[in-house]
């Protein structure tokens, strides 16, 4: 599974993307965040306030509780500020 990070999430984690292989019980974006935080300190810092983090699954806006079944690309990012 490809995981992407944008804006200050990318900067705090120190990379824009990575390929991960979480265990089968990581079934939602919320669970994926918990699993990432359990692995390294920088994820704890990046995902400190999850209420400020948005998620997209295969480039579609999703929720933290959306199923990750079949997902190839999961992206985490702050609220958008374009325009």
């Amino acid at each position, binding site marked *: 599974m490809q995981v*992407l990070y*944008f*804006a200050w999430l990318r900067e705090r984690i120190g990379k824009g993307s990575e390929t991960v292989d979480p265990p089968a019980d990581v079934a939602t974006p919320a669970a994926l965040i918990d699993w990432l935080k359990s692995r390294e300190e920088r994820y704890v810092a990046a995902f400190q306030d999850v209420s400020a983090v948005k998620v*997209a699954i295969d*480039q579609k806006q999703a929720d933290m509780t959306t199923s990750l079944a079949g997902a190839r690309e999961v992206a985490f990012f*702050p609220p*958008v*500020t*374009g*325009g």
Partner: protein
Amino acid sequence: MSVRVQTDDFDINAEIAALTNGRADIGAVVTFTGLVRDAEGSVSEMTLEHYPGMTEAALTEIEAEARARWPLQGVTIIHRVGPLAPADQIVLVIAASRHRQAAFEAAAFLMDYLKTRAAFWKKEASPDGDASWVDARESDEAAAERWGRT
């Protein structure tokens, strides 16, 4: 292509001409141009980051939504990415219609949706070297919500 994400600047005259040239069924063209603002001299550079693929898909969806809501003869959405300076153009939205109300409403709608639905992020660098990500504004969310759920 009526939806573009690009590092290059855009030319408003040329973009309007591309929509209207040779057509006599358009009575109203509304453009919105967003510029890098630096009212207090605190911004030396702005950088626009985006989510390639997802931004284009979102803009295409926003365009389709506008065309479903208003009778539009043409729509253009251009959003720049990469480093920009104060007073530089960031975004251009054009809506062309027979009458002005549809053109005005569609252009405002396109901007409200773009501001809240398209995956762009702004980072401002100040002259002293500090850099910070621009916070999302609640007023943008409220502006998008006035058009109702989709």
